[in-house]
């Protein structure tokens, strides 16, 4: 099964929770969502074809949103046809992300909110940058800008472009002689 799951930070959070206590332990999931917690996520069977906007209350205040806007647009200003971070909807993205009831997002909330309130923190700033880039490059404009071609039906799987094959053959020829 997919190895991208190894990249998913929340699995570490879950594993951490399972490690709590000793003796026999029930698999309790994350405990972060579900009925009665007041922290409902979108559940285990959301509509996928027409996704609904997430319903959890947003927590950023106007001052945090303003500061976030200037931070994000300083990082990713408008450039040619590429929209700025705020034009690409990243402020709303962060409000959704930092308000979400899941372990990864709760960890980001704890890290980033103090930073948005003016506490200098290079770790928070770096995480903000990472999330901003991932959010920008998953917008329609970002998907095109990064060089992705696809997400539309192809009549067949076209051969690799000659330019790509040549690039790889040249790269191969440049590898140093293999060490025994």
């Amino acid at each position, binding site marked *: *099964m*997919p*190895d*991208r*799951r*190894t*990249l*998913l930070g929340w699995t570490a959070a879950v594993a951490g929770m399972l490690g709590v206590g000793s*003796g*026999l*332990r029930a*698999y*309790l*999931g*994350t405990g972060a*969502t*579900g009925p009665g917690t007041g922290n409902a*996520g*979108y*559940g*285990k*069977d*959301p509509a*996928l*074809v027409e*996704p609904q*906007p*997430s319903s959890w209350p947003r927590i950023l205040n106007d001052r945090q949103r303003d500061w976030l806007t200037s931070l994000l647009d*300083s*990082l*990713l200003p408008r*450039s040619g046809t590429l929209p700025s971070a705020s034009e690409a909807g990243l402020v709303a993205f962060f409000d*959704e*992300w930092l308000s979400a009831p899941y372990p*990864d*997002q709760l960890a980001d909330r704890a890290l980033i909110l103090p930073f948005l309130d003016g506490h200098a923190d290079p770790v928070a700033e770096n995480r903000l940058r*990472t*999330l901003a*880039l*991932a959010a920008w*490059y*998953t*917008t*329609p404009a970002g*998907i095109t800008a*990064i*060089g*992705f*071609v*696809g*997400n539309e*039906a*192809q009549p067949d*799987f*076209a051969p*690799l472009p000659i330019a*790509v094959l040549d690039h*790889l053959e040249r790269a*191969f020829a440049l*590898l140093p002689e293999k060490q025994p």
Partner: protein
Amino acid sequence: MAAHALTSAGLRVLMLETGRDYDPATETPMFQLPADAPLRGAATPDKEFGFYDATAGGGWDVPGEPYTVAEGSQFRWWRARMLGGRTNHWGRMTLRFGPDDFRGRSLDGLGADWPLDYAELAPWYDRVERLIGVFGAAEGIANSPDSPDGILLPPPRPRAFEHWMGMVMGRRHGIPVVPAHMAILTRPHGDRPQCLFATDCMRGCAIGANFQSTTVLIPPALTTGRLSIRTGMHVYAVPVDGSGRATGVRCIDRANGAVHEFKARAVVLAASSCETARILLQSRSTAFPAGLGNDQGQVGHNLMDTPSVSVAAQVPQLENLPPFADEGVTLFHVYAPWWLTDEQRAGKLGFARGCHIEFWGGRRLPEFDDMVAIAQLARPGRGDALHAEMQRLYGSLVYLSGRGEMIPNAGSRCELDPDVKDRFGLPVLRFHWAWGAEELAQMDFMRRTLADVFRDMGATILTDLSQPIAQVMRPGGHVIHEAGTVRMAARPNDGPVDRWGRLHASANVYVADAGLFPSMPCKNPTLTIMALAWRGAHHLAESLKRGDA
């Protein structure tokens, strides 16, 4: 698979599914973008493989239906709660087990032999591959059988990153990289169209171009008029009569908790390896006080999963490629089969059994978690410089995964928890898990091999290689290849099920999932599950016609 085979043979079948009805034609998010989804589609505890993954109502955690893990063990159990179950979510890797895989114990003294050999299962592999549609090629690889001419569909060319990895691994390391065998249509197959070469297979397929039982098996079974399906019915026990024969099944309606009993001439359990064991263990009666088929105390034992270790790297040669369509079938176009059979036989490797290598990466639709991974590598900067960094890095991350073979051991099993019950009041499973010395040695070898390949091309390895191998191997259950809990054996004291998949203890109860496997080679299990299920269903149908099942 069993329902398809039994209805084809003229028998009437009632299929009981614990999850909800599911229709890939209307429920698959084919072209939806990450930006259309909550949290950009990132993985959460509600959707552990990302928002659009084709798993409904389940995952590592099914609310109200927990399981427990014994102290000192790590295990996770993936369950779907939907028609078609986990066939809606799988890697589509469709490899035949080879002749040696059926007689491992005879060859090296470890584990258990199968009560049948490759030649006996080969015609059923042929049938399944013809029915579901599999692409691949005949490579003449040791212990990795070719299919007869005319069965496999043509494989797609490697994606760019696979092409590069294949060049380096093949020419500089002697590791063959060959077309994968995948249950994805590269040509029209019956009334199913070919792949669109776009959109992630793990979301499912609305047009039925990959294998899901909901698109390939259930519709034709329904058209026979002999299949009835009841969803939301959680089977928990198989009652028996005074002679030990099953009379049907008992189940709970998950919507309202009502108990139902359905009568049948025969019962086929295909609930997945561990749930099938749970049903048998809960089927206690005067005749079977320890659970149906559990006279020898073996049900739930010999639990296996695939040992796995991954190494990720940033590959400079894959930077700054010109834009071009390279999604392909979105899952593996190639894999590296076990290439050291001779060296292993000569005793040069220091461990038993083979491994294969799977390839992840490439110029896929940018998904949030992938973009996080490359954003973390982007050098400092802002604006255009930062955009250039992301464009440079896109498509240059490669994840190689080594997959081995677990030898069953006494420390890996499941049983009924004596204390914990689910929301229906049913005892839950408790898992015990321990990797053995062979798996640790296999994975240590694979990690070194994968790291060598990346180092040789000057890649930046992103995985911490300093950890002990036992700490970086995925815990039990994580590869979602659970197998072996009700294994086949010629004699009842070696396994609860006979060579046809029928309980030794009860002639009209069959098993049709990976619980049957006496061994779990590095080859992915789904094709063999289906071949065994079809073969067992054929045996059941013949027995019913003769009146002796």
